[in-house]
């Protein structure tokens, strides 16, 4: 009997812990983004982070994009064939990528590659007391270390999502037109007719931006908040990938319901 009460109390405690963590992360985000760094060339710091977070993720994004586009075209063709609508494969690939897979898959890949790297990097800085050193010298680590990484994520991920969509559509074209024999004109023509800039491309971009904010925020916060030990860092890295992925999928549903 008392063990049930204990469990409930434990649940309540962890629930409160979650709420506290969310509050901490909110304050963290605000303090990192508000105001400018006293020291440090903000632009060159941002540049460096854009490189490590954006450019270095290009490889996985492009390869995944091409493959997913190809699979979409392949599967789409097989399904549409039964209805005599193979020419619609172009718009199917494009709409699926732009509305859903582009932002979502990019966000998930980003969380796994760049997000976990950010968490580990910041966590390691915390564990080796580099963040404390910065404070002692008088530099706010939130502005010097965290903020550039946040902005880099906000900027890089939507760009990556757009690139993902384009290479995906191109990969789909390779399969549909060159391999499966769908008429090139139909592929691109139907696509152009049914894809709307406002409803599809822009909404996909908005999704990508929302995901970018959420994923980068989680990644950076987990690193900053972690236990400064090696297990602490590895736990934080895992948490980043799990929480970010769940958040992206959940938000995707909400945004899709709102937008489409």
């Amino acid at each position, binding site marked *: 009997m008392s063990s049930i009460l204990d469990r409930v109390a434990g649940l309540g405690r962890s629930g409160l812990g979650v709420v506290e963590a969310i509050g901490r992360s909110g304050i963290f985000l605000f303090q990192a983004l508000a105001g400018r760094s*006293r*020291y440090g060339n903000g632009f060159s710091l941002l540049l460096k982070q854009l490189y490590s977070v954006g450019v270095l993720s290009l490889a996985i994004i492009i390869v995944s994009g091409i493959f997913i586009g190809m699979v979409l075209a392949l599967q789409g063709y097989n399904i549409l064939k039964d209805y005599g609508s193979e020419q619609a494969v172009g718009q199917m690939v494009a709409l699926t990528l732009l509305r859903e897979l582009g932002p979502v898959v990019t966000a998930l890949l980003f969380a796994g590659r760049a997000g976990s790297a950010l968490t580990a990097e910041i966590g390691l*800085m915390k564990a*080796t*007391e*580099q963040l*404390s*050193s*910065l*404070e*002692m*010298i*008088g*530099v706010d680590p939130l502005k010097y270390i965290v903020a550039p990484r946040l902005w880099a994520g906000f900027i890089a991920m939507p760009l990556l999502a757009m690139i993902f969509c384009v290479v995906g559509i191109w990969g789909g074209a390779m399969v549909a037109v060159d391999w499966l024999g769908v008429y090139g004109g139909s592929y691109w023509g139907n696509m152009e007719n049914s894809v709307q800039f406002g409803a599809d491309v822009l909404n996909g971009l908005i999704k990508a931006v929302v995901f970018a904010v959420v994923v980068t925020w989680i990644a950076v916060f987990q690193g900053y908040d972690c236990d400064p030990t090696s297990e602490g860092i590895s736990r934080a890295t895992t948490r980043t990938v799990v929480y970010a992925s769940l958040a992206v999928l959940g938000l995707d549903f909400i945004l899709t319901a709102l937008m489409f």
Partner: protein
Amino acid sequence: MLETADLIVDLQQVTFTRGERTILNNVDIRIPRGKITGIMGPSGCGKTTLLRLIGAQLKPDSGRILVNGQDIPRLGREELFDARQHMGMLFQSGALFTDLNVFENVAFPLRVHTHLPEDMIRDIVLLKLQAVGLRGAINLMPDELSGGMKRRVALARAIALDPELMMYDEPFVGQDPISMGVLVRLIRLLNDALGVTSIVVSHDLSETASIADYLYVLGDGQVLGHGRPDELMNSENPRIRQFMQGEPDGPVPFHFPAGNYVDDLLQKERQP
């Protein structure tokens, strides 16, 4: 014995808790200017917390922390920024910035707090590195340095702005005898030649006692005793005695609290 007029750091009735643990309970600590003061005690007694309180990384629950007359926890951001210019801290692991090379690491505080031209910065960096004996390593990256070298570079960085107060967090942990000797010599040198006040937090008795002018022994969130090293060695207080003499059992017990020994053994026999 202790001139209260010339204190560089004055902790007055400082209490600090973390969660349910009281780490410091109404402690008074006075650090004299120009001397090397050692803060010692068993692990977890709050030594590192003390340094962080002085450096304003943590705020006390109550009490005043005066550094050079300024109440540190209550300073505004601008004033704190200026105050930090006069404090240097050497962290346990060195804490060099891993993405910058040795030169940039040492130059970092200079770039943050001053607007000196590049060649002046270079001169100062060379000077500091020469003082710690690592001028030749100026272009290396931190991961190319040994542990002892990292710590020396970190020391060079900590003294880049010629602070009045230097704080050393467990500087002797895990050092081989040569590195130990180097470090001890440097701490002594800085203190004698440059008049830098030093606070050394450590649980290494022999090294700390050998260089400290004055010692504080902490335990259980309290100051157990303070005085010159030779005074404390002969202290009557059993807890200070246990620490100073390195006795394995005493006020800090050898056995972790447990039930009856015989009962434990018998229970084991009954379980299949």
